[in-house]
């Protein structure tokens, strides 16, 4: 025995020293959680076991505060909805059948807290993590999206945080060779000390190639491959999801070193190609990515989802640092690693592929017929646990829920009495001010830092309403993906707000000509220990689940991120919704910019009401947040989607753009600038309401003159309200809104595109 091993805390030692005090509180465990572990094991845990339970039972890994609410998803998923899913909640990522033998998998993850501490690396490793989730399903990752939230655009700290995060998302994704096809950039005071970095990835595989993270088959080998394991990110999971994250030192559960890892996109790129070659050889029985909680998570989840038994020789793990303890090896969050289960006879072939790609691969364990996960360190047992208790049977809390005391006052504070622009001059002024405001201005400064072309399959990307990629080069089958959430609406009414987010993402997919198929989400909220936050959470999750039922599309998975707050002030409730749609032939996609065909008519589908609660206008012009969000009508959203699909199938629609933040004025400006064409527009009724209301369920479409009658007849027949709002005028260099204003395209472009460069260059 060498001297370093003398200090290793083994199971034998744990049995012999039951009363030895353990730093479970520092690791983020509560007293009763620690007691529960002792009960499960019938002794005190070893150091390694304690590390393992503490990370796996953290909020981030165990979903202990949110799990009980997931029943809403279950209860609202009908057989029919379920039938479209090949894998759902509980797997690394949801999988849906898109036809022609293709399966598509997608998921959104958060990497909020690390990105505040180290914007570049936090965001970069966020992208890396979600991509490995997609790989772990057996799919080739095809594209990424990045919904982001920041503090006020002009706050000094935003200048530190935003450029770093954007560079990190781009730095990792670009180097990995994944096109970035969408996302969000939203500014609000509530995110000032707690930006949100959500990252989404979509991948595809043939249906028969679906891999699930299961370790089954006694005697099968467990192989760790990818990067070496180092001291980075140790305890990260418990810290990043710990209640004490708030920037101040000294709280319990907070380590001195914030857990930030450095990403290596090159290694991940090679790992992707290596994995795909392994999948192609059909020599992978089960696979799991190493994300938060590292090997603790991978081994316990693989074993728990399989037959239960696994044996691991931990000292075989290739290390980057000297003198690491078993507990450190187990909880290291070093990036760019995967864990596979392989039949013994396939191990040589597995190793050959890894060698070709220069990927380090090590057999670290095997599947056993027991029901315990046994981990040794130089022949001494350091972990001996029932893996389900680590991975799947963690604590579950029914946190107190209470509607915030000020919710009524907030809703009563309606925006009706805010002074509105009425003269043409005021309206013109308002249009220009709105399109230049940080939440409505062009995102080009951000999205030009992302490669949208790599892989050659990107059909739509920013600034389109949804991103679209071709999956099958022969048939042209593809998918569209959009992410949305208006946190201001969610604050006013989290149930309706969440449904509005769902409706918007759904609509964004539909306007591209795709048929919405499935949902993933990333639920970003404040502290679950705050009953008001839990109320927001419960309302939102119910809104999403019931909304999905009404739309007939299942929630296939998602992610919960709690403790997003500065001090005791929570962020706006931000349930980011990703909707995936399928399109049988990407050649019939509908673009966002108008003017592709001469003489297009502009139609507005849906109804405009006087709805300004939570609107961008109230925010920009009056700094006001109050009242109720716009009404949501999911049956209408469905009808809209059906009409757009028919319009795209029959070539009746040449462009479409959904109306959301900023209303019709915003949509018109964007449609003109993207199409590089002028338009003449007329608005009926109160021009202010027509131009700036944020009523949901509306889409601006351009139809060729020849198709106008056929299209409007179809709308009328189906009961979809429509109105003619103008014509495309390719000769004109301006957007003319009759009786309101005529604004040159150049002036619009300067206003719209100037804002972010002025702030961040």
């Amino acid at each position, binding site marked *: 025995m060498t001297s370093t091993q003398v200090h290793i805390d083994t199971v034998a030692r744990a049995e012999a020293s039951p009363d030895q005090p353990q730093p479970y509180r520092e690791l983020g465990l509560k007293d009763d959680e620690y007691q529960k572990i002792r009960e499960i094991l019938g002794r005190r845990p070893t150091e390694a076991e304690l590390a393992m339970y503490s990370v796996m039972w953290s909020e981030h890994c165990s979903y202990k505060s949110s799990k009980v609410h997931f029943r809403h998803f279950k209860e609202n998923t009908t057989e029919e909805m379920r039938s479209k899913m090949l894998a759902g909640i509980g797997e690394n990522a949801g999988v849906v059948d898109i036809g022609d033998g293709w399966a598509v998998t997608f998921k959104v993850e958060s990497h909020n807290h690390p990105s505040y501490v180290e914007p570049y690396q936090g965001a970069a490793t966020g992208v890396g993590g979600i991509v490995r989730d997609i790989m772990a399903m057996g799919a080739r990752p095809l594209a990424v999206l990045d919904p982001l939230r920041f503090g006020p655009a002009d706050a000094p700290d935003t200048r530190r945080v935003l450029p770093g995060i954007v560079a990190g998302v781009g730095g990792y994704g670009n180097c990995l060779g994944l096109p970035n096809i969408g996302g969000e950039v939203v500014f609000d005071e509530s995110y000032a000390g707690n930006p949100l970095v959500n990252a989404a990835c979509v991948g595809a595989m043939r249906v028969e190639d679906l891999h699930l993270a299961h370790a089954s088959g006694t005697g099968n080998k467990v192989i760790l491959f990818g990067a070496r394991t180092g*001291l980075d990110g140790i305890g990260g999971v418990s810290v990043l999801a710990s209640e004490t994250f708030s920037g101040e030192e000294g709280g319990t559960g907070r380590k001195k*070193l914030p857990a*930030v*890892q*450095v*990403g290596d996109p090159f290694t991940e790129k090679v790992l992707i190609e290596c994995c795909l070659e392994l999948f192609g050889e059909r020599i992978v029985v089960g696979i799991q990515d190493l994300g938060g909680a590292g090997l603790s998570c991978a081994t316990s989840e693989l074993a728990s989802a399989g037959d239960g038994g696994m044996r691991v020789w931990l000292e075989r793990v290739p290390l980057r640092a000297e003198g690491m303890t078993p507990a450190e090896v187990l909880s290291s969050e*070093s990036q760019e690693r995967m864990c596979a289960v392989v039949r013994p006879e396939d191990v040589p072939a597995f190793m050959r592929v890894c060698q070709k790609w220069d990927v380090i691969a090590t057999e670290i364990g095997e599947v056993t017929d027991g029901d315990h996960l046994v981990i040794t360190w130089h022949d001494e047992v350091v972990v001996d646990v029932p893996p389900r208790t680590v991975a799947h049977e963690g604590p579950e809390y029914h946190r107190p829920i209470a509607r915030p005391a000020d919710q009524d006052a907030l809703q009563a504070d309606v925006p009706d009495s805010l002074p509105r622009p009425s003269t043409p001059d005021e309206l013109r002024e308002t249009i220009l001010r709105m399109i230049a405001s940080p939440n409505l201005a062009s995102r080009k400064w951000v999205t030009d830092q992302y490669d949208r072309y790599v892989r050659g399959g990107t059909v739509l990307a920013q600034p389109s309403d949804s991103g679209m990629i071709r999956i099958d080069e022969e048939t042209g089958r593809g998918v569209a993906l959009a992410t949305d959430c208006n946190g201001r609406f969610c604050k006013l009414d989290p149930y309706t707000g969440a449904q509005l987010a769902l409706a918007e993402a759904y609509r964004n997919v539909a306007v591209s000509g795709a048929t919405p198929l499935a949902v993933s989400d990333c639920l970003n909220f404040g502290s679950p220990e705050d009953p008001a936050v839990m109320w927001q959470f419960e309302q939102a999750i119910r809104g999403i689940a019931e909304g999905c039922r009404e739309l007939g599309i299942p929630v296939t998975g998602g992610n919960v991120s709690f403790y997003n707050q500065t001090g005791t002030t929570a962020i706006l409730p931000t349930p980011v919704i990703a909707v995936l749609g399928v399109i049988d032939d990407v050649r019939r996609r509908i673009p966002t910019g108008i003017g592709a065909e001469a003489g297009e008519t502009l139609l507005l589908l849906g109804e405009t009401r006087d709805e300004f609660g939570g609107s961008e206008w109230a925010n920009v012009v009056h700094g006001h947040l109050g009242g109720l969000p716009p009404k949501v009508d999911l049956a209408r959203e469905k009808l809209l989607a059906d009409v757009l699909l028919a319009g795209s199938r029959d070539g009746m629609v040449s462009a479409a753009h959904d109306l959301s933040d900023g209303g019709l004025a915003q949509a018109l400006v964007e449609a003109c600038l993207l199409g590089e064409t002028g338009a003449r527009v007329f608005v009926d009724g109160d021009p202010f309401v027509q131009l700036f209301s944020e009523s949901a369920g509306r889409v601006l479409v351009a139809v060729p003159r020849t198709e106008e009658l056929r299209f409007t007849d179809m709308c009328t027949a189906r009961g979809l309200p429509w109105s003619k709002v103008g014509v495309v005028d390719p000769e004109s260099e301006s957007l003319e809104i009759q009786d309101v204003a005529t604004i040159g395209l150049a002036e619009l472009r300067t206003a719209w595109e100037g804002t972010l460069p002025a702030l961040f260059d």
Partner: protein
Amino acid sequence: MARVVVDVMPKPEILDPQGQAVANALPRLGFEGITSVRQGKHFELEVADDVDDATLAKIAETFLANPVIEDWVVRRVDA
């Protein structure tokens, strides 16, 4: 005018993919005997004479390096 050099290096426990790429490439290029490479940043500053060491330390700590993942050294050199 004084000349100041600031070297910023990834902390030893932090992954250094850049240094690793260099280290892995060297034997392939026929250079043996280099057992480890770490890569960081090297800044050369021209500084007015009234800028004191405390200020320089502050610049390095709050701006040139992120103490979460990097170490740094500030040196005055003869011009």
